[in-house]
């Protein structure tokens, strides 16, 4: 697979480290409930089809991105920046 890092450009997926389902959102620091953390840590939708997932470009700029990829075909339709630099990277892409 080829993943387009919003900063480095298109690279082999081997340069990236998979970090799983982007839908898993950590509860806020104010939320200490076991249930909420439980869902975040263990429960996955595991869809067959479009999957928004996190990758870290560990073999490059070491920034995370969100990749939308079809789990049936492996086709990647979107690579979006995430994190503090997301806004700037998006703007630069335009």
């Amino acid at each position, binding site marked *: *697979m080829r993943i387009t890092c919003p900063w480095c450009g298109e690279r082999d997926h081997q340069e990236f480290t998979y970090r799983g*389902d982007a839908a898993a959102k950590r509860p806020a620091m104010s939320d200490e409930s076991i249930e909420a953390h439980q869902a975040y840590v263990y429960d996955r939708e*595991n869809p*067959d089809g479009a999957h928004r997932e996190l990758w870290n470009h560990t073999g490059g700029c070491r920034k995370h991105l969100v990749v939308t990829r079809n789990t049936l075909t492996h086709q990647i339709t979107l690579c979006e920046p995430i994190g503090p630099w997301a806004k700037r990277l998006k703007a630069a892409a335009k």
Partner: protein
Amino acid sequence: MTRYSAFSILTNALRGNRDWTPAWRKAEPKAGYDVIIVGGGGHGLATAYYLASVHGVTNVAVVEKGYLGSGNIGRNTTIVRSNYRLPANSDFYEKSMQLWRGLSHELNYNVMFSPRGVLNLAHTPGQMDTYAERGNQMRLNGIGAELLDRDQVARLNPGLDVNGSARFPVVGGLLQPEAGNARHDAVAWGYARGADKLGVDILENTEVTGFLKEGGKIVGVQTRRNGEQADIRAQKVGVAVAGSTGRVMKLAGVDRLPIESTVLQAFVSESIKPIIPTVTTFGAGHLYVSQSDKGGLVFGGNIDYYNSYASRGNLPVWEEVTSELVAMFPNFARLRLLRSWGGIMDMSMDGSPIITTGPVDGMFLNAGWCYGGFKATPASGWCFAHTIAQDKPHDLNAAFTLDRFKDGRPIDELGAGPTPWYH
């Protein structure tokens, strides 16, 4: 149905092999069953078989969307072992070993269970201690285990690079002498034939497309067979669809589970004369290899990490497994890869299986097999049949519930944590 034996083979041969009959019937679906098992893989078929043979529940259908054995049962690297560390795993997989030993006779089908030994190589003294700890746990549980030094390992596997100059020198290994391989397809076919003989209907090319629900309880399945929809009712429905767990459970309204699906690739080389006697694993990476009876080196390594339902693998894993294999056996570099393929793994969050009642009323779930469900096939079927017939888990699978994640009792052999692709 003909009983299989050397005698039946000879007499049939004399008659030009004309009298053999189908190994299992091409059954037509009935309107309803006591139990429907979704998934005609090893676990589904074994479950049906033990429901009929142990619990006397024979009004059973196994519903399989493709050809029988098209899932992981037909695409694994066939390693059978019980060299586990944690008690729940150890007891469960040892039960499986016991069933494996008698399986060919029980099914009157040669599943070619071959106790050739599984050898885990160690590359540092620290790793030897870790293996010793596991081996001792096995011994204490009554499972055979031996710690081998470098020379013993070298004698067992002549081509192995035991040179001190290797990048990861071999210092020894842990051997489970009674572990080994079995013939993947034969397990599926043997269980199918055995279950069929006891009256179980095996419905191939029949996909479950939904579940029938009444008052929140599952009362059957919707299917598509040869392009046609049909409902089949059942008192109880067991789901054993391995890599498809996510999609099938969604049909039952269970949207989230502690499972992710990923590809695991397997590889086979061209046939050659016997070159490695045992199943051997590389301890400084992730690689396991054994030789099939046909002569092919069957090997595999890590999963492809990312979620996937496509049984198609990637190139980095090719590079990783082959480089580890030739690092271990530098005399294999000129041997050639014949074929590679992928299977969809139902990776659970702690790397251990789930065999449980629920999570919906009227339903039973068998999933989360990760890399290692082939060896579990007999015990999994045995326990799942018990769970379905008795409406509660057997002691052997009592720990393999979904609740374990809620309560903080993961069965995490590697200590890798809730990241499925680390297991």
